[in-house]
């Protein structure tokens, strides 16, 4: 990052939430880079920026769309990069219609039968089906399965190298963003046109063959009903400017937990198996053959998937995984839809989920809608919480607003609760994967105190017990458990399973001699190898724990390849083939990184090349080629079915091939761009305990509410609110308001305020600040309320949790809820004690903001479908 010429931070409070990572931003600044911070609030990150641009929460796509428009309009794109490395020239299906044509919807919006959804078929390339590298592979597989894995006809992709065809991606992009003008940005985001243009120009002049710009984001982009499309918009900006796969470029996701990256790679996520291999869906994956046909790709790197799947099954089921039983593929459970966290909680609240494990997470504070989270857990039969302290989640049966209001007594809660004290990172061996895909080992320093144990210990010994309980069972349902390989060696006084032995299994080994493989290229689909996660294969190469390497940075290059290990294959910049031009030469001396060495006949450079080592730039696949042979010498994006960066996503997304500005579920204004107000494909939970406000102009909730984290605390507070050193730095829940809003509603700095939504209400101390200003939108003033998202009812310092105000509404692609932009009301003074909807009891008094008639419609109604007044298109 220190090599960037311009760093645009948006949707992230980088300096506060990742201060040590921020040193690299400061390093770049010292070297002359321009730092731009786009954020509704002026934060400590803004204080270090050259330019701070406040935008109304929830308008990120309008802003980024404005950048795309600016780049296209002024021909500021990196033409050679664009032509060769992206799908700009590809011709799209004749049937495709844009949001410009359909008033904010893409073609394929299907409202017939069941839940309305998009049929993606018209989004495809003309005559060619592609299986996405990530995202919802199954629905593409379903459609393409009759012909075998998608991508077989990749050679038939039609291109127009002149970019003149109206059906090519480039022209579609141009039309789609035609109305995202600086004036529209001003009107939508509340950001002055001049400031916007200054940023656009700076970003463009800092990109090109000898300059690169980086984009950084975190949950400020993801916690929206359009979260994935915001990041897609960023990808389009970076692909147009040629900033992907190059030093100082990229889109950097700053991650909030020590191993949130790792828990996605080796996923504790319902829809994935290790290494981004999709979980089988019942419809397509009754057999291994059907599964592979619908989820692997005939072209690009994902054509290797069968090797990874079979190796995983061998790692899990050992000798029970045989060629004649499809490697025990039938042992895996199947999905039938969305089994994400929010769906699970909603089901739990209906009594369908009876047992719940929570490990090192505090959803009652950190997830959305605390009251509904607690309600759900009260319906469970048993809950197991593992943590350092008794978090709000561990104490859901006696701590929370409904108990304080006297609506419920702990004695009425019938859930059985187990709390296990957890070992700290200093008390166990193991690895975290950081935001940069660096997998780093932490060594055990001492034994854990009392009966605290690692999760590894808990899981291993729980697994052992369950294997015993089921021993001798002949029930087919118990075969997977009995077959599961579970013979890790243990060590120490508490029979701790060896973490290194698990790293060895993740890395993979050859079945015959048990020797660790050197990397994923050695994995096979014939059952001769096992590997727990192909993407991490190589982490135990040569039988050495590569993750534990700690060679000081001063003894190696700035890329530091011998510090820990990065997936895949220890590559530090992904898709770094793009750092060289189509002929394999560095784009410029200044940005030299990886290049083709024609004498050696291979790719070389400062990093491990993320490409097929000996494939020359001139290589072109045969038309009928399949597998890795389809990757041309100038196709840097090897994971993609067509080797190109996708400006336009013909598959993989549920809400459209291009990002489109939709307003949040709850907004102060009507969508200035389209009659379609919100993301049509967003996931809603229409239940009486999850009421929504009007889509816009709700007089009861006139202000924008946004949430965020601060430097002094950590996420849901389980690791900070119990500690005196951090708690004294920020001891109370507060809300941030502008001087204008404070004057408008009568709030006093240091005093109290009550913040309300239809889901709940909380009290907080007031911080009046100039760092927040009202937004001017088309002549109208919109105020915002900022809430930090750390406090809860337990701990050394306590306060109301911001998530009591949030609802269940989510992005359709990844089911992340919307916390960054919604509406609220704010009143001076402390909380009044009324009853709320989510406890399932009577709705109490509801005070309206000054000057507004009380209107209970849509708030905690007992009808199943609260009316969504004024939403013109739903």
């Amino acid at each position, binding site marked *: 990052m220190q090599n960037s010429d311009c760093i645009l931070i948006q949707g992230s409070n980088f300096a*506060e939430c990742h201060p040590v990572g*921020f040193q690299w931003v*400061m390093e770049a600044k010292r070297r002359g880079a321009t730092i731009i911070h786009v954020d509704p609030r*002026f934060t400590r990150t803004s204080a270090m920026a050259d330019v701070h*641009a406040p935008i109304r929460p929830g308008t990120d796509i309008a802003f980024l769309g404005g950048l795309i428009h600016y780049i296209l309009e002024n021909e500021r794109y990196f033409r050679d990069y664009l032509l060769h490395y992206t799908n700009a020239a590809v011709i799209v299906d004749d049937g495709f219609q844009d949001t410009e044509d359909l008033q904010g919807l893409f073609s394929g919006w299907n409202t017939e039968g069941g839940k309305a959804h998009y049929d993606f078929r018209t989004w495809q390339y003309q005559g060619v089906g592609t299986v996405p590298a990530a995202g919802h592979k199954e629905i593409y597989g379903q459609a393409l399965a009759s012909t075998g894995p998608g991508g077989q006809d990749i050679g038939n992709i039609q291109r127009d190298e002149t970019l003149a065809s109206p059906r090519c991606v480039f022209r579609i992009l141009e039309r789609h963003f035609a109305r995202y003008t600086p004036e529209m940005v001003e009107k939508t985001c509340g950001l002055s046109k001049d*400031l916007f243009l200054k940023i656009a120009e700076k970003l463009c002049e800092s990109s090109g063959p000898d300059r690169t710009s980086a984009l950084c984001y975190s949950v400020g982009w993801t916690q929206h009903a359009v979260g994935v499309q915001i990041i897609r918009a960023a990808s389009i900006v970076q692909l147009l400017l040629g900033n992907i796969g190059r030093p100082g470029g990229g889109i950097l996701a700053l991650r909030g937990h020590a191993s949130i990256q790792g828990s996605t790679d080796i996923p504790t996520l319902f829809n994935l198996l290790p290494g981004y291999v999709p979980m089988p869906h019942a419809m397509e994956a009754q057999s291994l053959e059907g599964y592979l046909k619908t989820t692997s790709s005939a072209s690009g790197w994902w054509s290797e998937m069968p090797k990874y799947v079979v190796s995983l099954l061998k790692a899990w089921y050992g000798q029970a995984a045989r060629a004649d039983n499809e490697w025990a593929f039938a042992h895996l459970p199947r999905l039938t839809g969305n089994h994400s966290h929010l769906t699970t909680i909603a089901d739990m609240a209906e009594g369908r989920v009876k047992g719940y494990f929570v490990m090192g997470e505090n959803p009652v504070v950190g997830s959305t809608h605390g009251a509904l989270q607690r309600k759900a857990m009260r319906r469970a039969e048993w809950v197991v919480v593992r943590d350092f302290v008794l978090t709000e989640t561990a104490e859901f049966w006696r701590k929370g607003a409904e108990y304080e209001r006297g609506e419920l007594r702990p004695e009425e809660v019938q859930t059985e609760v187990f709390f296990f004290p957890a070992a700290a990172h200093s008390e166990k061996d193991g690895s975290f994967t950081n935001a940069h895909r660096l997998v780093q080992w932490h060594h055990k320093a001492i034994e854990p105190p009392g009966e605290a144990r690692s999760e590894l210990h808990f899981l291993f010994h729980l697994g052992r017990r369950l294997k015993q309980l089921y021993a001798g069972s002949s029930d087919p349902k118990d075969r997977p458990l009995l077959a599961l390989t579970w013979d890790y060696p243990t060590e120490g006084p508490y029979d701790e399973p060896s973490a290194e032995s698990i790293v060895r299994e993740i890395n993979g080994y050859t079945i015959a001699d048990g020797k660790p493989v050197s990397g994923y290229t050695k994995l096979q689909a014939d059952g001769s190898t096992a590997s727990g996660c192909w993407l991490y294969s190589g982490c135990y190469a040569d039988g050495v724990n590569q993750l534990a390497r700690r060679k000081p940075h001063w003894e190696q290059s700035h890329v530091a390849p011998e510090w820990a290990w990065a997936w895949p294959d220890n590559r530090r910049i992904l898709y770094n083939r793009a750092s060289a031009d189509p002929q394999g030469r560095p784009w410029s001396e200044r940005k030299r990184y990886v290049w083709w060495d024609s004498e050696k006949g291979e790719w070389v450079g400062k990093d491990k090349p993320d490409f097929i080592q000996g494939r020359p730039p001139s290589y072109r696949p045969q038309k009928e080629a399949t597998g890795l042979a389809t990757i041309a010498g100038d196709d840097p994006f090897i994971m993609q079915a067509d080797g190109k960066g996708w400006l336009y996503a013909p598959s993989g997304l549920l809400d459209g091939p291009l990002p489109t500005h939709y307003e949040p579920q709850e907004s102060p204004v009507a969508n200035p761009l389209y009659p379609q107000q919100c993301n049509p494909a967003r996931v809603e939970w229409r239940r009486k305990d999850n009421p929504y406000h009007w889509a816009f102009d709700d007089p009861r909730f006139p202000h924008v509410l946004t949430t965020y984290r601060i430097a002094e605390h950590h996420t849901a507070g389980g690791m900070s609110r119990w500690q*005196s*050193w951090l708690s004294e730095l920020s001891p109370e829940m507060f809300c941030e308001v502008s001087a204008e809003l404070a004057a408008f509603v009568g709030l006093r700095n240091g005093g109290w305020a009550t913040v309300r939504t239809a889901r709940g209400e909380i009290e907080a101390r007031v911080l009046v600040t100039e*760092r927040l200003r009202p937004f001017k939108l088309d002549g109208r003033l919109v105020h915002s309320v900022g809430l930090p998202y750390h406090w809860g009812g337990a701990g*050394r310092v306590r306060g109301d949790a911001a998530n009591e105000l949030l609802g269940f509404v989510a992005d359709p692609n990844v089911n992340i809820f919307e916390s960054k932009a919604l509406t609220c009301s704010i009143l001076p003074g402390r909380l009044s004690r009324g009853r709320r909807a989510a406890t399932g009891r009577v709705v109490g008094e509801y005070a309206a903001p000054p000057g507004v008639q009380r209107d209970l419609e849509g708030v905690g109604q007992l009808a199943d479908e609260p009316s969504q007044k004024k939403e013109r298109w739903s």
Partner: protein
Amino acid sequence: MAKGFFTDTSVCIGCKACEVACKQWNQLPDDGFFFTGMSYDNTAHLGASTWRHVAFVERPVPLGGQVTGVGRFSLLLESDVCKHCVRAGCLEACPTGAITRTEFGTVYVQPDVCNGCGYCVPACPFGVIDRRADDGRAWKCTLCYDRLKGGLEPACAKTCPTGSIGFGDTEELRAKAYERLAQVRRAGLKEAWIYGDTAESQPGTEGLHAFFLIVGRPELYNLPSDPVVPTKKAGQSWRAMGLASVGVVAAAVGAVLSHR
């Protein structure tokens, strides 16, 4: 060789790593849990248990070289610390010899000698040193005397993510400070200057071992613009008194003479 801090506030991100790293190394207790309503600052000031303190200055004045859409506004951040004055009021006021000048030129309170008399407290022109309520003794930044003896840098300087807190030989730090000053001024931060680095610029302390690059008036950061150690004033007082008595004598003599 004299050691000290150069705190470059222009790169301080207000993350308070210094506050916590200091508490960790020196095993200091918390200072209470009070919401102040003063920006993100809730520790408010340096004290017996807070030896590094980050000040937050929100002001309706734009910062040179910075553009923001929130209007005329800037946020200044500064990690404050004991200044380890060249002429230290606390040290001169200490009757027990508990406060001493170390071989690094820093000012160190020896907890095994301090008897809690508190004379040092009003003697500090910066209001840094303070007595702890529980044991009555006076405490302040030691400039990590123990770490320095082991060849380590102070905990706050080591941990500071953006290098705002610089540690080293004061001579070298001074050179760095002026190099940095020139740099930020070139970048548009015309208000920047170095606070307290020399006896000339701060005669009342004869200069500080912990000096700062700040923006604007020192009062913004709750720093005195002209700190003077009391003994320095005492000298002046004696001189003034001396002069006055000479004057009185002269007047008396004059009066007597004129009376003649």
